[in-house]
């Protein structure tokens, strides 16, 4: 066995040509746009409405449990696993056939997802003809658990031309040590301007806020999203994984008060939280649904609070997330199922919605694919009526 005379400690600072971990020092910048090579049918001209979908696609892992889920310990996928999963994700997208698709946790060259360019894959295997990608995590080697090279982010696909693509930086966490923070995600927002013809341009925002912070970073990020939407001058759609519950109640209210969450909204002890995750960096921090209230006050959600209802029985129809899949059981031997809502679609007040839903499984809109087996998030969909 031979070791070259290398001081490994210096290597991290002196390697060249590519960031070891991209610090993403930007505030707002243009990002590349992509175009399908395959021939896809042209979309309707001068549309009065757009079918839209937002979906956290879990890096094409479907229901393979990774180590930070605590139900498994995988750190990478085989090419066949990724291709099999992506083919089903693309099939669901084709079945719903959106004009605009927002994806989160999409990857374009990560070791864990077999270095597949998923943005390109969806371009070539759906009817979507244009795309943009905003990286939020780009490291040539993430040392945790041997994760290795990673390039993850948010993407926007469209049947109509994307004329401008940019990413907007979000606040970083402040509750991590320097080493962890260096190799961690740097959340950002994808923004695309889409030319839908006849001189009309719409703005699409793809968002994915922090999941594990204990320092209020997610709340800051959600406030920033709200401010961006309020300042947008074009007709806009904002969709994605907010990692926050709907503001059915106020988590700060005392029990017994009208605003209290007791009996209205589950805030803790979800069936997919494994006891061993508690106390770790991947423990579920307390939800703060009140931070989402501004979105419901000022904008038009795809699922209104009245429709969402009160209590789990009413709400479960709109749940969008479960760490645990239906083929696995938790420590109480309960199989995984959608158990909370974290994913949303919002538009400006002056525009309208129709046919909004959460595609939790086969059935709605003629979809045959089983969404709960394709990701730990369900796609949220609707038809955005432009007025």
């Amino acid at each position, binding site marked *: *066995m031979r070791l070259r*005379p*290398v001081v490994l400690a210096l290597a991290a600072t002196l390697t*060249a040509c590519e960031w070891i971990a991209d610090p993403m020092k930007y505030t707002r910048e243009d990002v590349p746009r*992509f175009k399908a090579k395959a021939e896809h049918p042209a979309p309707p001209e001068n549309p009065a409405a757009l079918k839209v979908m937002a979906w956290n696609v879990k890096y094409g892992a479907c229901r393979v449990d990774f180590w930070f889920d605590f139900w498994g310990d995988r750190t990478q996928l085989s*090419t066949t696993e990724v291709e099999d999963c992506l083919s089903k994700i693309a099939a669901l997208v084709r079945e719903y056939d959106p004009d605009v698709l927002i994806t989160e946790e999409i990857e374009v060259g990560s070791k864990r997802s077999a270095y597949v360019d998923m943005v390109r894959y969806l371009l070539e295997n759906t009817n979507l003809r244009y795309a943009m990608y905003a990286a939020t995590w780009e490291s040539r080697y993430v040392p945790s*658990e*041997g994760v290795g090279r990673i390039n993850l982010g948010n993407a926007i696909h469209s049947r109509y031309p994307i004329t401008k693509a940019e990413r907007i930086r979000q606040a970083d966490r402040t509750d991590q040590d320097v080493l962890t923070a260096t190799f961690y995600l740097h959340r950002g927002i994808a923004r695309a301007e889409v030319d839908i013809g006849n001189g009309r341009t719409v703005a699409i925002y793809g968002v994915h806020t922090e999941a594990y912070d204990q320092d209020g970073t997610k709340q800051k990020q959600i406030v920033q999203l709200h401010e961006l939407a309020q300042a947008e001058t074009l007709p806009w759609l904002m969709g994605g994984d907010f990692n926050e519950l709907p503001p059915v109640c106020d988590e700060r209210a005392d029990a017994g008060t009208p605003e209290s969450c007791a009996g209205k909204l589950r805030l803790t002890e979800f069936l997919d939280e494994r006891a061993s995750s508690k106390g770790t960096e991947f423990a579920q921090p307390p939800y703060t649904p009140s931070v989402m209230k501004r979105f419901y006050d000022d904008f038009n959600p795809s699922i209104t609070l009245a429709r969402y209802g009160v209590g789990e029985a009413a709400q479960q129809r709109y749940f969008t997330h479960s760490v645990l899949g239906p083929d696995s059981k938790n420590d109480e031997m309960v199989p995984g199922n959608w158990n909370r809502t974290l994913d949303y679609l919002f538009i400006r007040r002056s525009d309208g919605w129709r046919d909004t839903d959460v595609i939790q499984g086969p059935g709605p809109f003629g979809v045959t694919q089983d969404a709960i087996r394709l990701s730990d998030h369900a796609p949220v969909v609707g038809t955005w009526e432009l007025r």
Partner: protein
Amino acid sequence: MKPALLTVLVSSLALAAPRPARDTADVGKQWDYSVGIFNPLRLAIVDGVELEANPLVFFVAPNVNSRFRILGGPVRLTAEAGLSLPTLAMRLMKGFFFPSWETSTNDVGWMLVPRVGALVSGTVLEHSVWTARADAAFRVPLGRNSAAPLNSFLAPLDLLLAAPLTGFCTRVGGAYDQALGETFRLRGEANLFVTGPQGNLTVNGASVGPIAPLSQLIVTAHLGLDIAVFKQSRLTVGVLWANYDQGQSAVVKGADGFSDRVRVRSNNFLPTLDFIWAGY
């Protein structure tokens, strides 16, 4: 402070002749030895036969390599044969370079890694030496293994673990070691490695499909300067360049304003540094 120390060290030399060239086909006389922090401990047990081991990792990755002089004279030929057992060291890397595998029975498997090689060296002028070499290491599995190739950006580590993780690692290379007076030696080396394929991803003993393929070709070059210090020791500094497939991609913008993502090979530059103490 450092330049002053270096001046003292260099000025204390017994400058009879340059230090001998390193990593050549030359095999020492009985009880000749050398050892670095990263370079292996090398000891000639009899004239023309050396044993070497890397003490830095020896207790977690037992390793030994033997070198036999086949041919002496102006052109020297040496054969090498070695064996290592890297499993324990690899298991100590779990959590950082390998998964911890907290919820499964996956683990780094037990394995032996035999190695064979040959070196040819010749002397140019009085103290400068060229060397050509070829070697190969293979994995002999001794049980179930779930560890997958690292595909990191640290070429020395990827090369060190290439045979254990991909099945084999072969090399052809050449070096030229030029004496610059009695104090310095300049050394250039280039190597071409071919590793095994990425293989299949194994989970709980069963394959779940192939790991994404990467080019099996690794090219390295090293430029180093040896500085004679004390009577027989040397300080080595240098830079290693490695070119290989790490899964990197680059975005290329087309004339129509739209981009494409293409795979590219990565280039790494790593500093090298060692202190080698020798006796002969």
